[in-house]
């Protein structure tokens, strides 16, 4: 799914998968920080966002 979203033009750094056990709090913090940093660097997403229908 990530690959297909990327093919359609969603930036690679917007979609992340991780596997974190409930015991791995340090990893959780690390991953979340990394992801938010990456997404913030990309700015607000404009793709696959529908503010209002673009129709007649």
């Amino acid at each position, binding site marked *: 799914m990530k690959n297909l979203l990327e093919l359609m033009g969603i930036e690679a750094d917007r979609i992340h998968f991780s596997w974190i056990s409930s015991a791995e709090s340090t990893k959780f913090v690390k991953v979340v920080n990394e992801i938010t940093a990456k997404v913030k660097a990309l700015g607000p997403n404009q793709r696959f966002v*529908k*503010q*209002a*229908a673009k*129709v*007649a």
Partner: protein
Amino acid sequence: MKVIKIDKNQWSQGLEQLRNAFRLFGPVGNGKASSIQELAPGQAPDLTFANTRLSPKNLVFPQSEVMLNYSLDPDDPERNILKEAPKDYAPRAVIGMRPCDAKALSLVKMNFDTDQYQDPYWLNLYNATTFVGLACDAPASTCFCTTAGCGPYHEEGLDVLLVSQKDGYLAKPLTDKGDQLLKAAGWSQAADADKVIADAKAAAEARIVSKVESDSLRAADTMALYGAPFWEDISFACLNCGTCTFSCPTCWCFDIQDEAYRKKGVRIRNWDSCMFPIFTVHTTGHNPRDTKLQRVRQRFMHKLKYFVDKYDQGIMCVGCGRCVRQCPVNIDIRRVSAMMNSMASAAQCAVGGK
């Protein structure tokens, strides 16, 4: 109203002059898949096409159209009250649609303009538009307009009929609206061309060789056609996609949907299709037309029998051939109509022979 001659050198100048009073639409050549679009300043309609891939029905009946809008903002005293969406009904002109598509609009008008109710969206766009048709001198082999109550020079539904000439066009005004358009364009050179047009019309009609057989359908028994044995054979290949209905200039079915976006929302309508299973499904899950056979039968019965009976204006088909050309599995309305018609005429012969 006299026929007007438009010389080649007056053509684009007149079109540009029309822009003072009209938004212009016309066929835009996009390889062979031409479509009718709004023409940008300086852009001339491409009048070398056979016919557009999709019918121009979207000009008055957009595939998706906002009908109503509303506020969902809890702080808005007017929240949840549905209101008419603002619309642009400034005058528009279509330059160069085919006569079959204009006739189709006049058939569809019977659905949207009734004694009891008038559909404001369809009618406002229709009334705002001046339809300038381009007579059809080079029909496709799949065109069967002449047996579908129409023809390559058919005038119904048009305001002006353009006839292509070597050195320009002859323009036949058919309504006041059409007359005004020609004046607005500054085209005023009267021509004595009735015979030229009549000859060209006869020649064009002779070029239509394909037929739809429907003469016995009006008198046919509805329930006998409905119960005919051929529907499995006709419907087997059908994929139940909406290609035939969406490409058809006379299909008008639509769906109404609400779309909410946080503090506001719209009610829009979208083309719908009798080919889709969910078209008729009840909330209980019961579906009166649950099978492909029932849906295919509905489409052809509606076009060729129910409509014929309801309005007595012939079949709900103008012979443009789009469904024939575009059906992915080659279900051909000419073949279906012939089967229905021959069953109907055989039944009539049997009655007459008694």
